């Protein structure tokens, strides 16, 4: 199963699903897949589903920030959804909960 898949859902939002381990070895490719889709489709919203992400490193977090910025440049809302408790803890340590729309 690929580490990333991108689907357009009814209403036009871009639904990104991340899976497995996102780290320095694949984050640049994941970033390109998502940012290309944002640039092509200009969706009203970008939602990143994180439930199946087992491991995330700082380059994966940087990738999410870049996607957030690409969404902002396309005037799209951006939200990260359903991180595991471990990844949630990591995003809290990174100070990104509010920016990623997490409680």
């Amino acid at each position, binding site marked *: 199963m690929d580490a990333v898949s991108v689907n357009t859902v009814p209403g036009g939002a871009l639904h990104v699903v991340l899976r497995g381990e996102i780290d320095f070895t694949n984050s640049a490719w994941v970033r390109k897949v998502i940012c290309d889709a944002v640039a092509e489709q200009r969706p009203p919203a970008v939602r990143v589903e994180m439930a199946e992400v087992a491991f995330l*490193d700082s*380059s994966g977090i940087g990738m999410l920030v870049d996607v957030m910025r690409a969404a902002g440049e396309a005037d799209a809302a951006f939200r990260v959804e359903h991180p595991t408790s*471990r990844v949630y*803890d*990591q995003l809290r340590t*990174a100070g990104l909960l509010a920016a990623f729309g997490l409680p």
Partner: protein
Amino acid sequence: MAEPPDPGPGGPDPSAGHRVDLLVRDFDLGTLVAVRHEVEQCSERHGLSGLALYRFIVAVNEITTNAVRHGGGTGRLRLWRTDGRICCEVTDRGPGMPASSADHRPVPPESSGGRGLWLARHGVRRFTVRTGTGGTSVTLEAI
């Protein structure tokens, strides 16, 4: 490289302050992920679990990744147990960490990089850096 043999019954008693080596690995970009998996499995076998295990693996991975990206492309990792704690040392022969790496301020949310050392420092009980023109050595002690 083979894993050092488990001292087993009659071997050094970790509770007595002896160091028990668990894993020694040389790594580069091609083995970064495999070594991370080995460190995770080994740390779990020796008692780390849950959030403490995840934070430790995140921290170790940030330091090995730094060695690959900025420390000459290769490094050596040692994992050991002492006094019931899991510790890891990552050494590279790169040009040394820049002075700015001692900056402990948080990274602003809109910045795409610069979070590796922050995450590593905040994920462990103890974080020790020795760095100079001959390379960098970082020691991490799990929570």
